């Protein structure tokens, strides 16, 4: 089955009110192009699972797409707090369900492996467990009495991840090997959309089958989007654009200024190519390209 869709078609796999999970980690490999398309299509009332995230969540929150956020951490690291996330959490515009990184991994694994729960020591003695006692249950081993946390399944409708290459059947290569937690959300999700830097021939997968990361039967849609993680990084091809992060954070200090920035550099460009152009085009991309590749 042909899995290649254009970005508009792929985004329609996400319905209003559904639960999506975003791949990547912090400033790395967030599926920004597909997230921007969800914003352009005006998706509403999403529940967003974002283990360790930043700009993708901040965009979705800024655009009013999010009702509930299930997360471990949202920030721009040393470049500041994520301003829209912060404002929306403080105003009550969104509900934030804070977990930790591993508690979310455990919940995703329970969902992915059809188990009633996954046990872990993570979170013991913290205030996180009491936020959601039904999904992170404090229990004791029936024989030894040892305490553990029983993490219940976290169902995900659509996983959205960014990768390096795919073929038209939906086989995907992360190149080099998967570094983040994307496989956890892909395994747990009902459907998976993968944006890739490039479509490559099916024969390339056959030539080096040990380098394949997701087999076709885990993938529902493949979208070719070069620079598809911009302004976050796609190791080892390009790094995050700190100019974008700084300008975004600076603009966010004042609503009017942010609105201008948002329209011009995020929301208005009608294609991914025009979005890249609005952010400096080739010159900017050359700046973030890693020199040693």
């Amino acid at each position, binding site marked *: 089955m042909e899995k290649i869709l254009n970005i508009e078609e792929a985004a329609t796999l996400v319905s209003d009110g559904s639960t999506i999970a975003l791949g990547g*980690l*912090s*400033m*790395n490999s967030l599926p920004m192009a597909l997230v921007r398309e969800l914003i352009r299509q005006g998706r509403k009332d999403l529940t967003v699972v974002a283990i*360790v995230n930043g700009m993708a969540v901040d965009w979705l929150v800024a655009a009013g797409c999010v009702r509930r956020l299930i*997360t*471990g*951490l*949202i*920030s721009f*690291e*040393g470049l500041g*707090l*994520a301003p829209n*996330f*912060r404002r929306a*959490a*403080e105003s*009550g515009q969104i509900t*934030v369900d*804070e977990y*930790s*990184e*591993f*508690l979310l*991994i455990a919940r995703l694994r329970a969902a992915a492996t059809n188990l009633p729960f996954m046990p*872990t*020591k*993570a*979170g*013991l*003695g*913290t*205030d*996180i467990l009491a*936020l959601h006692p039904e999904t992170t249950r404090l229990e004791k081993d029936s024989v030894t009495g*040892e*305490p553990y946390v029983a993490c219940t399944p976290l169902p995900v409708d659509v996983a959205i991840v960014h990768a390096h290459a795919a073929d038209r059947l939906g086989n995907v290569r992360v190149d*080099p*090997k*998967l*570094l*983040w*937690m994307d*496989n*956890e959300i892909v395994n747990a999700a009902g459907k998976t959309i993968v944006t890739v830097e490039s479509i490559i021939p099916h024969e390339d997968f056959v030539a080096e089958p040990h380098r394949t990361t997701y087999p076709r039967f885990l993938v529902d849609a493949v979208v070719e989007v070069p620079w598809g993680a911009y302004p976050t*990084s796609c*190791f*080892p091809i390009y*790094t*995050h654009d*700190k100019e974008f992060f700084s300008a975004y954070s600076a603009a966010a200090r004042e609503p009017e200024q942010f609105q201008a920035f948002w329209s011009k550099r995020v929301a208005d460009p009608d294609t991914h190519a025009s979005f890249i152009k609005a952010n400096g085009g080739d010159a900017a991309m050359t700046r973030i390209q*890693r020199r040693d590749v």
Partner: protein
Amino acid sequence: MSREIVGADYTIDELMVVTLSRQFDNSTRAFNGAVSFIPVCAYLLARRTHAPELVWAASSIAIDADPPRLGESTLSDSIWDGAVMLSNSPFEFWAYAQGGHYNTFAFRGAQIDRFGNVNNTVIGSYDKPKVRLPGGGGMADLSCMIPSIYLWSTTHNPRIFVKKLDFRSGIGWGDGGQHRAELGLPGGPKLCVTNLCVMDFHPDSRAMRLKSLHPGVAVEDVQAATGFDLLLPDGDIPVTDAPSEEELGILRQEVDPTSMRLREFQ
């Protein structure tokens, strides 16, 4: 804030890095998270001085990385140069952390209490926060899994060192005493290094205790900067050991020649 120390040929950031670095040895297997320049410098310094076999996974991913200089993020590929292994997060990193293969972790908090618990989640109430912070990330996990925990803060003041956390995102010694052991968690916080002093934890109560004062700092200064009653050690309180010339040279010229660690002092 000032990093200068009157009459000394080293600065507070250097003293903090060197003090932490001396805690580590060849059995240290560490990793780091975001905005962690002080411990990253300390691991690299230890490896270049007394602990050549120390393991450090840059950004928790790039094992045995040996970057020629630090980048502006400690969670990005800018510090992965020279790594011997790029490890996968769920199958490799989290397996090594849970299995005790990694044994050392350093973290900070927007709030720290007397038992070394930390808050990075909210200031104010969880549901109506005055300030929504980034969230704990892997702190709740790793603080339960890793036996040798180090805390640091470049801004020792009563807003950070508080009597009661608004939210406990990561566990130190928990409620103190045997609480951590009762939960079945290994080890606990060993030391807290700040811009004013070094603190350890009382072996029974697990409450924070002054261990040494940085040059020019008085006990009263530390107590005034601390929102809870700090235990004092028996006898005289020493001055924190000064860095050696060798340590300063290596830190300045090899580990962090572009002084990225000063980003923690803005």
